[in-house]
């Protein structure tokens, strides 16, 4: 057992280093340039040279855009170039927030925006709640003494690797009116349903599909948390003749809690940004039943005939605000706002 595990590890290492050798031409090519750079800069300044490409890209494609985003949010017009955009102050935000009754999207000037906000909130709460429950149950099962744990873990993880477009197509094919789901229903004598054109059913399926696609990831994190619980606690509990249920309630869940909180916040951060798979699966429909915030930004800024960049940027600020709150929450949970060296548990982006 341990013998084969070791052999496995060696094999993996050998494979990795073979890969490394195959890719070594790239840095080897840069060698003369870097030698020259070190002569000019001196060894002490070399770390900045090593950092330069990354910082350049982060600067260009992350930090600069953050600043520009504010500019967009406070300017109007349909022009892309900042110099051609008239300053409008809070107008974009005011437009978004122009509502007679915030709890009824139809009374808002941007009713789709508010519909999207409510959809996103509803989706995030339901999806994360269900996903955490399923992830914990699955992780608990996977943490038992089962045969072929690696295989089973893989089973739940596999959909995580599929692209959102593929996920959407798979389910669209299953849910279509002539699809296999209706086929199975007919087989057991239930009337088929038009899943894809029913607003409430579609919302349900969007939640289910996104859980299907992502729960493997969270299961993995929960499982890591479970495996970090010292085994002797369970032995001790057994000596105290605790029932399995009490062990779960009094030992496993409390010790898993910190891990679970991280999972919840992480999942919330991702859920608020839901877009790809839903966009392909439903296009936001039927009607606006599954239109979420990011899709609103995409449509306002890019997809519709008139590109309202300012409005899209303003909506981005709203989204950023929500994410900021969640991120701060996460940092607070992760340990007093400091970034720990050991593990930065996730983050908002998919990189």
């Amino acid at each position, binding site marked *: 057992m341990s013998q084969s595990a070791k052999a496995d590890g060696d094999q993996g290492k050998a*494979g990795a*280093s073979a890969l*490394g050798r195959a890719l*070594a031409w790239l840095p*080897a090519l840069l*060698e003369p340039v*870097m*030698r020259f750079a*070190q002569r000019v800069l001196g060894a002490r300044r*070399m*770390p*900045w040279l*090593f*950092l330069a*490409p*990354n*910082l350049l*890209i*982060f600067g*260009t*494609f*992350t930090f600069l*855009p953050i600043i*520009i985003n504010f500019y*967009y949010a406070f300017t109007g017009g349909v022009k892309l170039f900042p110099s051609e955009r008239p300053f409008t102050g809070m107008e974009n935000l005011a437009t978004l927030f122009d509502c007679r009754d915030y709890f009824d999207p139809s009374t808002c000037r941007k009713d789709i925006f508010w519909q999207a906000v409510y959809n996103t909130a509803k989706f995030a709460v339901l999806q994360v709640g269900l996903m955490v429950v399923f992830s914990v*149950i699955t992780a608990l099962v996977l943490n*038992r003494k089962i045969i072929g744990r690696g295989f*089973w*873990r893989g*089973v739940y*993880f*596999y959909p995580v*690797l*599929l*692209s*959102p477009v*593929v996920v959407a*197509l*798979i389910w669209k*094919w*299953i849910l279509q009116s002539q699809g296999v789901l209706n*086929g199975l229903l*007919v087989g057991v004598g239930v009337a088929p349903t038009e899943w894809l054109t029913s607003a409430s059913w579609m919302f349900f399926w969007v939640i289910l599909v996104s859980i*299907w696609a992502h729960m*493997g990831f969270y299961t993995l994190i929960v*499982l*890591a948390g479970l495996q970090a619980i010292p085994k002797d606690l369970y032995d001790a509990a057994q000596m105290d003749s605790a029932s*399995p249920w009490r062990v779960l309630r009094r030992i496993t869940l409390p010790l898993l809690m910190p891990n679970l909180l991280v999972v919840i916040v992480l999942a919330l951060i991702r859920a608020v*940004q839901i877009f790809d798979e839903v966009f*392909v699966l439903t*296009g936001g429909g039927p009607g606006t039943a599954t239109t979420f915030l990011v899709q609103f930004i995409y449509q306002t800024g890019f997809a519709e005939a008139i590109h309202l960049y300012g409005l*899209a*940027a303003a909506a981005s600020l709203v*989204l950023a605000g929500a994410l900021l709150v969640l991120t701060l929450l996460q940092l607070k949970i992760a340990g007093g706002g400091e970034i720990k060296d*050991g593990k*930065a548990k*996730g983050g*908002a*982006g998919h*990189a």
Partner: protein
Amino acid sequence: MPDALRFLTRTSGRARLDWTDWLSYAYLFVGLFLMFGPVLWIVMSSFKTQSGLTDFPPSFLPYGQKSVQVAGNEARLPLYRVKMPDGSTRELAELRRIGLTATMIDPAKPGEEIPVNIKDREKTSELRVATENYTELFGKLSFGRYLWNSVFITVVATLITLLFNSMAAFALSKYRFRGQKTVFLLIIATLMIPPTIILVPNFLVISNLGLLNSLWGVIWPAVATPTGVFLLRQYMLTIPDELLDAARMDHASEWQIYWRIVLPLTAPALAVLAIFSVMWRWNDFLWPLIVLSRSELFTLQLALNAFQGELQTEWNYLLAMTVITIIPVTLVFAFLQKHITTGIASSGVK
């Protein structure tokens, strides 16, 4: 008999499987069905003919309606099993159909036209694997083009990601310099800034750089991943500094230390990042959707999206294309699952 049962239910660890074990395995098998079932269904469907896809209720195996070549007709005609008025059944081919009545002929006696009420007939099916869904794909729909675009973006972006991220990680883990902490915090901060909230300004940046409708417009913003820097830095911290000192005594330049000493030793983490990067870039959707609007630049994901949105979706091709898109991911999964899962479990990032 009870002995045999006990023998069968014996496990390696404990004496017997109790009910919680049975429940666990039941849960797992249901999970197996739910997780793999949909994918399997797509794969099976992708081997069905266009007409086989419209069958309802659908069959699991790729059954398709039989057809025959009948003299005097150019196209092949679909075959039906028809219950004749005299009670016998015959296999007839459909010539044409108006309303509830179809005009059919016997392939053996092409001269005679037989009117048949469509209630009295049934499709004749045969097991037929429609490999043409795949073979015709390369000629049709410029599939090769999309495949190339996806592969190009994935490979090039991954190579640059590995290079840039490992350089940054090296600087952050193996040197001590002023501003180091600030830089590290900045990079970690970008982990908190999802790309979705800077779509609009990024679009401006990309178009100002002339990268709109260019594959590089997808590649450049993606190659500096905070996740990658973080992952590699954590790994490089475990490499003893004495090794670097030894290399310095050995006349190695800083760049040589980076690629001759540190990089090879970081290989396992680089492998994990390479896998992640391949998955990210292969599966990317929203950003390519914004940058690439010309169809000859579409990646596979964009192409899939475009075709599924068309009025007359040719599902047989779309399904085949989906399956091809899944293949690399599945291969990565099959061979490197352990690396991915341990990578995620140890870094908490995806």
